[in-house]
């Protein structure tokens, strides 16, 4: 992936990653993490990662995973924290799905904040 990203974006770009796919028991978060790692390795910046639609379930603090399952969300949060990437989620989408408390590492935002932050972005990548 680093090679192909370098080919498409020759100069440094400011990325926003937009996630709407269901993150539960799917490799989406791993894909996002690999994309973000590759982009950073090539000198690009990840402005923030925004969770919308069904993806907001990622904030649920009450997950109780069986011991033989990988905690993708935990791993993802550690990565984002180390890389200093804000993890934002749509408050309205979360509340409508019953998620009123967020796991540490996720920050409540609105669609308007997402819109304002897009003004300084070069690339929006959807997962």
């Amino acid at each position, binding site marked *: 992936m680093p090679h192909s990203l370098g080919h498409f974006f020759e100069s440094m770009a400011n990325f926003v990653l937009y996630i*709407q796919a269901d993150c539960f028991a799917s490799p989406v978060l791993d894909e996002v993490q690999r994309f973000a790692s590759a982009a950073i390795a090539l000198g690009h910046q990840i402005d923030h990662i925004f969770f919308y639609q069904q993806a907001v379930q990622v904030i649920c603090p009450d997950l109780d995973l069986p011991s033989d399952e990988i905690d993708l969300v935990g791993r993802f949060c550690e990565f984002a924290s180390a890389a200093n990437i804000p993890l934002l989620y749509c408050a309205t989408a979360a509340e*409508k799905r019953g998620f009123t408390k967020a796991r540490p590492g996720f920050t409540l935002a*609105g*669609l308007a904040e997402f*819109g304002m932050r*897009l003004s300084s*972005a070069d690339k929006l990548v*959807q997962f």
Partner: protein
Amino acid sequence: MRRCVIIQQQSAWSGSAAREAQDLALALAATDHQVTLLYRGAAVTQLLPLSTPLVVKDFTVTQKLFALYDIETVAVCQQAMADFKLSADQLRLAVNMLDEPAQRKLLDEADFVVVI
């Protein structure tokens, strides 16, 4: 200001996708982006007047606010309109009917595209 295209693909009856796509379009327009809403596939039926009310809150009435929010263009896929045997005068809003090359041009010229 960025040129944003939000592609609607779901009907109003397919979960929350249509409503959340519309909310996103309104929020981007309210934050000064140049927004085009493109309805493809079953999503073109969102623009029809409802003959029976939705069981959930009818978000489609908010389409009347698109102009107020300065949503630049409402476009529909020509093929989808044909598939559903619809004509533009049946829809609640004035729309641009786009064939595949015109849709490709729209996407080529956009800064950001979100498909919902």
